[in-house]
């Protein structure tokens, strides 16, 4: 008996020693947003399950992009996991900079990831990043103001309806703007919005031969419609408004409608919002051409090739993007706070179906197709971006020209002509 006890104790000691020896500290670069910060708070659960500890490097989105891009292209090896988006993943996957994630455990159930998400985070069928949360864009509107205007929001509105409703809801005396949209320069700010909007107007960034298309009527219609509607019914200085500025206006009751990321739904209905009980949701508008103006995005976790801690990193990704993690957050903070838009099973859960914006978020995500984002065919993947390395630089410059037009510093025609020249020069220089 004594011998058995000693043997057991010895086995335990060896087990503990090997677990300690195996335990790693992984470094994760991530963005500062509500879901990611919440995940950091639950890191102890991961450590308890695996023995691995985590060092977090949290940065503002644009700083993070620059930081991780520098590190992965120079092979700096500073991070074991990087938080990246749908734009970077296929490009980096193609370049061989990321570890493929096709061998995740059966328990993880990779097939449960929403197809739109796994498609956008793969290259040639190989998954290179696991979605932590996904988002599309949709209309968030004030039901009380809509009613006051004598209108009813359809579940799938057109741009003409949105413009008419915006004009009727606008009341300059009470500083109520019919509509708030992103006009701020930057490819991830106003650039993302106008690109997604242009899809519904039949515009595209490039034709099948990679020729820029800003000299087309479809682009002129898009930008003129945007500017016309915002001049009529938008807030003063909309050319410099991004997500945060519009969120602030909407929460304070100064917007009748706001078309933006689906993740904003939880912000406009939480305790900080003065209009929480009046908010309704609808699909992003279209123009009857078969494409809506919603985008598709995911913040996902990827492992840079060359990390020495690949196994521990994969364990973390399996934990953070698992069904169990969603259950953990739901149990502690309620279903409205779980990371949305990544897993099919979440939207089949009767508890989650009770969350007011759950259905519209899923419908918005499902209506976006990164592989066929436009009315006419395109050679690129991506709804509000084109997944080529040159896009970020070109789109930043182009969106600056558009913002200058919104601000009245130049005409829409001048902005489009400059956009065409910028894109043509950059694409020719890149050898397209």
């Amino acid at each position, binding site marked *: 008996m004594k011998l058995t006890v000693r043997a057991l104790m010895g086995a335990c000691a060896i087990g503990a020693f090997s677990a300690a020896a195996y335990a790693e500290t992984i*470094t994760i*670069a991530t*963005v*500062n*947003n*509500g879901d990611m*910060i919440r995940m*950091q*708070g639950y890191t102890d659960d991961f450590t308890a399950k695996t023995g691995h500890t985590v*060092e*977090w*490097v*949290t*940065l*503002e*989105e*644009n*700083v993070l992009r*620059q*930081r991780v891009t*520098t*590190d992965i292209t*120079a*092979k*700096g*090896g*500073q*991070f074991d996991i990087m938080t990246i988006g749908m734009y970077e993943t296929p490009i980096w996957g193609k370049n061989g900079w990321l570890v493929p994630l096709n061998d995740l455990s059966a328990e993880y159930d990779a097939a449960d990831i929403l197809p739109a998400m796994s498609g956008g985070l793969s290259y040639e069928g190989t998954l290179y990043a696991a979605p932590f949360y996904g988002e599309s864009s949709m209309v968030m509107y004030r039901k009380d103001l809509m009613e006051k205007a004598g209108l009813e929001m359809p579940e799938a509105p057109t741009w003409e309806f949105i413009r008419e409703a915006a004009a009727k809801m606008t009341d300059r005396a009470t500083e109520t703007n019919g509509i708030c949209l992103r006009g701020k320069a930057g490819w*991830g*700010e106003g650039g993302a919005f106008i690109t997604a909007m242009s899809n519904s107007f039949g515009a595209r960034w490039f034709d099948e031969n990679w020729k820029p298309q800003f000299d087309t009527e479809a682009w002129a219609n898009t930008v003129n419609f945007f500017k016309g509607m915002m001049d009529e019914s938008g807030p003063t200085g909309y050319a410099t408004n*991004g*997500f*945060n500025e519009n*969120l*602030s206006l909407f*929460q*304070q009751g*100064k917007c009748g409608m706001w078309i933006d*990321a689906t*993740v904003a739904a939880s*912000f406009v209905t939480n305790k*900080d919002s003065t209009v929480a009980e009046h908010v309704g949701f609808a699909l992003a508008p279209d123009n009857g051409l078969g494409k809506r103006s919603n985008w598709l995005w995911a913040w996902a976790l990827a492992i840079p090739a060359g990390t020495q801690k690949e196994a521990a990193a994969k364990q973390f990704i399996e934990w953070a993007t698992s069904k169990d993690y969603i259950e953990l957050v739901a149990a502690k903070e309620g279903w409205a706070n779980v990371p949305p838009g990544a897993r099919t099973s979440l939207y089949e859960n009767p508890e989650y179906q009770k969350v007011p914006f759950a259905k519209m978020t899923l419908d918005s995500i499902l209506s976006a197709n990164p592989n066929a984002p436009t009315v006419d065919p395109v050679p690129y993947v991506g709804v509000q971006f084109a997944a080529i390395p040159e896009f970020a630089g070109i789109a930043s410059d182009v969106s600056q020209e558009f913002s200058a037009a919104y601000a009245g510093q130049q005409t829409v025609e001048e902005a489009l002509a400059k956009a065409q020249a910028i894109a043509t020069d950059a694409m020719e220089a890149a050898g397209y």
Partner: protein
Amino acid sequence: MARSITTKRKTINTAFAWAVGLLIFFPILWTILTSFKTEADAIAFPPKFLFFDWTLENYAVVQERSDYMRFLWNSIIIAGGSTLLGIIIAIPAAWSMAFVPSRRTKDILMWMLSTKMLPAVGVLYPMYLIFIKLGWLDTRIGLVIVLMLINLPIIIWMLYTYFKEIPGEILEAARMDGASLKSEILYVLTPMAVPGIASTILLNVILAWNEAFWTLNLTAANAAPLTAFIASYSSPEGLFYAKLSAASTMAIAPILIMGWFSQKQLVRGLTFGAVK
């Protein structure tokens, strides 16, 4: 009569100086005030200046979420180390340029200053690759060296300006009394230039403390200073202005306090030689 005009002018000047001072200080004051607001009050329009529900919640959240002391310690080491190293190198360099100038001294000074005009991002990749080779990524020593190199032209320029104000005859007399070069710099020149050296140190500590390009791009989890601490609270998707303000206040507090207590020395050093 003349006395009353002087008093009136003094009052106007004082009021003007206070107005300019408050204008410059206002963003810092606003950041501090915002750090005591709720997120809803932080974005309220019209803005709430003093009449809001004061709360320490943001500081509690920041304290819970981040290891402030680690960031602070890194900032102290990096700012202090780079300034100290810079001073050690710059004193002999400035001495030689001030007291034994060559025909090219002016050109060298201008060339050194011109390196400050190069956009830092232009050398990010070469610098990053060098840091990988040397194993300096995310280390304090790496940042101490890079910040020292960045600020060295300013340190040399400032010391050169102060040294030029010291009569060369005094150093010559020391030499005639048998002082070695080391003794001349350490025991004659340095004590006479203490106000200038002190203000140079203070200014460079401030510059290194606030440096936010290299400190963000060359660090990860270990050597990240307070600039990275602030960056971790900034977000384009989410209204976290009150928490960001709390983090910013915690990051600038040490340097603000240091600046407050050493302002006399700083002003004295910066105006050294300005009025003859």
